[in-house]
């Protein structure tokens, strides 16, 4: 196994493009090292991107959104008051990952590229409309976060490509997001179901709605119909029921040791309702 710690992305891309066998980018390593230790993935090449300047920065974009460097950790996000104010759902999704120790290492980019169906930050980032900057031997392109994972453990990134930044859009007025997951315990567990909701309101009326489910299909499920169900309405009981029904109908889960199809489907509806209520309260500017 070869370990590199490049100083620039050009160098990192060149290493990745030229490497044989299995290559892994080392961000926090909380997936890479665990998989290595348990004989699941033994990389031939490890490229540690944490020494590249700017990868630890959280910066305001010109448009008023947020640019997250690829080594930014969950803990750094939670401690960033302005980011938390704009995107509480994204930050709380990231904050659910692991323990205090894991929080000091784990990154949203790693969470995304590990491509687990149960990744917590992914539904929240997709609901928020996050975009990844993908850089490869042929230059850079902007890719919607939902297009990165393609199946469990697989991404759409080509050989030599890597993510060099994540961008969250400007929050804008009267918006609020939320993420909830179901686990049998209180922490240190993998989502049995996850649900991210991002809403915008005018008064009590919803003007924009996004809902994304995690752990109920091979990749995160964007429930496009959520907008039809909610936009133009208040979040009354009927709207919540419609949302819950949509969530259940969108599930395509598996039966496994973490949950049955039936349980996952049912719980997706419950979480949809609860997450929407939190996002709604936040969008209206109330405490949630």
């Amino acid at each position, binding site marked *: 196994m070869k370990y590199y710690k490049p100083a620039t992305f050009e160098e990192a891309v060149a290493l990745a493009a030229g490497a044989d066998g299995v290559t892994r980018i080392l961000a926090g390593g909380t997936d890479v090292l665990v998989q290595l230790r348990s004989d699941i993935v033994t990389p031939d090449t490890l490229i540690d991107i944490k020494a590249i300047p700017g990868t630890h920065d959280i910066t305001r974009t010109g448009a008023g959104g947020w640019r997250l460097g690829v080594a930014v950790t969950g803990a750094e996000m939670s401690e960033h008051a302005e980011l938390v104010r704009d995107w509480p759902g994204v930050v709380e999704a990231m904050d659910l990952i692991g323990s205090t120790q894991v929080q000091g290492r784990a990154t949203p980019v790693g969470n995304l590229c590990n491509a687990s169906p149960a990744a917590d930050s992914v539904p929240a980032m997709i609901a928020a409309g996050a975009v990844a900057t993908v850089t490869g031997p042929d230059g850079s392109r902007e890719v919607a976060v939902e297009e990165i994972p393609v199946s469990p453990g697989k991404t759409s990134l080509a050989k030599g490509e890597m993510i060099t930044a994540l961008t969250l859009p400007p929050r804008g007025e009267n918006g609020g997001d939320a993420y909830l997951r*179901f686990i*049998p*315990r*209180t922490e240190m567990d*993998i989502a049995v179901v996850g649900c991210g909701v991002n809403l915008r309101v005018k008064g009590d009326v919803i003007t924009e709605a996004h809902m994304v489910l995690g752990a109920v299909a091979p990749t995160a499920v964007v429930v496009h119909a959520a907008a039809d169900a909610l936009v133009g309405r208040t979040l009354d009981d009927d709207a919540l029921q419609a949302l819950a029904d949509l969530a259940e109908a969108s599930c395509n889960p598996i039966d496994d*040791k973490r*949950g049955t199809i039936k*349980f996952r489907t*049912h719980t997706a509806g*419950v979480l949809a309702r609860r997450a929407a209520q939190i996002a709604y309260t936040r969008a209206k500017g109330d405490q949630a």
Partner: protein
Amino acid sequence: MALDSSKTTGFKYVGTRPDRPDGLDKVTGRAKFGADAYAPGMLHAAIKRSPHAHARIVKIDTSKAEAMEGVKAVVTRADFATGIEGEFGNILENVMAGEKALYDGHAVAAVAATSALIARDAVKAIEVEYEILPHVTDVDAAMQAGAPVIREGAADSSVPEGLHPNIVRYYESGHGDVEAGFAEADLVIEDHFLTEATHQGYIEPHACLGTLGTDGKGELWCCTQGHWYVQKVCAALLDVETSQLRVTASEIGGGFGGKTTVFIEPVALALSRKANRPVKLVMTRAEVFKASGPTSSTSMDVRIGMKKDGTITAAQGTFRLQGGAFPGAPCEMTAMCAFAPYDLKHVHQVGYDVMTNRPKQAAYRAPGSPMAAFAVESVIDELCNKLGLDPIDTRLKNASREGTRASFGPKWPRIGLVETLEAAKAHPHYSAPLKPGQGRGISCGFWFNHGGETAVSLALSEDGSAQVAVGTPDIGGSRASMALMAAEVLGIPYEDIRVTIADTATLGYNEISHGSRVTYASGLATIKAAEDAVQKLCARAAAKWGIPEDAVYWEDGYAKPSGPNAGEFEPLHIGDITATMGATGGPICGHFEATPEGAGVSFATHIVDAEVDPETGKTSVVRYTVVQDAGKAVHPTYVEGQFQGGAAQGIGWALNEEYIYGEDGRLQNAGFLDYRIPVASDLPMIDTVIVEVPNPGHPFGVRGVGETSICPPLAAIANAVSAAAGVRMRQLPMRPSRILEALESAVDG
């Protein structure tokens, strides 16, 4: 002089709460655990394990592994002793498979190499050809006609004819006429209960460092609850003389019964003998789950009859315990503990020990008792609910007391069940209001406790301080308790006593730290050893004063003349005597060797409040109170720790912990991610009440406390969850999906 220090009140040291002597070492990382030992030239070992639940081993080809650079030895079953039968034969078969692999994770070969990485790679290079056989992992399925036979001829003579060969032991006891008793009842409830296997979940994986020479002399460092037992087993499995193998117990990162047997030590020694180098072997967590000893899973039927006034008229239980691929599931214990808390005219209990293709079960705190309590106390709860009776009053009405005939035969001596029930009833928790969605559960629990072979030696130093050597690994703060008991007898400060867990070359045989025996048995031995030293101290004083030995008594660290007739002498401090001991007769030591048989049983009553989210089925335990009889709490903080630990492990067992086997018979959750042990935030603060009904069999009244605390939780939590959810939960773990299913079928039904 007064030699017998028996007392139950008026203590100076016993009952206080000083810091534990091993505390600083543990919080600073200085303590040496199993994997912390190194030796010059040491090799690292790894074990090749079967991926199949049940398979005949056709061929093992180790040639590629042996040819690898850095590989120094490979062993298979051929490298162990032959012709061993009985308990040790089973251990050998478990430590290294013979003709068949009997469960997913069963060891089939092992490698020692110059690095852990090479050893791991070499294991992958070992080629094993298997002929896969049908398997069974479920206890009920394993008893059915036509179930795959794990091993022919494993049953003992207790098993009635005509039963499946997987049923290897049968137990039955009781008295009266249960049918007559049921006829007297106003209500009879019979239910079926299931519990899944759980793991003790100790934080420290099994680890050892072994050296064995071709001369048959060996040294072994390992993490165990009983190193004399390890010594005996390893000597037999490697065919060396017991005394030639010195075993030292490391600090132990939890055992809870799971380290009362042997899994890897003989393998390290066999590799060492072959490579002629020290060999270190450390299990991974996945190996711990797959190939150490979880609890039995159970299938149980319990039937209880009750009168409208709460009197239990009869009780009957059938308890089937799945014990893995070897005999030994504690079916007698389950059956004996089931109805122990109650005074029953008509009672009958049956136990089955059943083999399956799973790892050999091991003890886990009060082996067998928690499951029995789950079934029995759930039925009592249902009866109380249906008859509108208070659960504590009903238990008090039927409670076993001194003189009651126990459900399994003998008459109870002085026991403290009633006292725990009364203390629970008086506790503010029992009368606190519940919020909507919450439910409260009560349960009693019982464990026997144990004495066992014990040897302790105490040596006084010139400066008047004392060193105590005990042979029972400290699994719960016992060094502190030993020091307190020695301080009490010697009359010197707690800090002046150092307690060491001695190796097998230093003391006579000490039984394992199990059966909640340490504070009782090593404690008793420590007291007796200290008394022995005190007698010798008094003799030195008597000699100095020129008066008879029996005219000297010992008080608060001083030898004193026993009265005016004995003469007027200045009391002699212990330090004054030890300072000159070399010249007055030589070293002063005390010792004690015996098999104390006066262990006192312990009962407990637990109160639990649980809250259930009816939309997701998720349970939170919101309040928990443990009330238990400790006899005498030598170090109350560590007694409380045992109470809380039992409750915490019980919460995991009741709610989310389980061994999950796939159709292929392989364990699917061999790690802490999917084996859901509670994390700190899953637990409420756990309140404790120490009841002290002295055990007449111990000089200070001590009863064991480590195991009883895990007997009531499964039932108490199930009763609380059933009350909160409004449906009766009869299967563990009560994971969210199971609660939702129960809620749903309650609506449908």
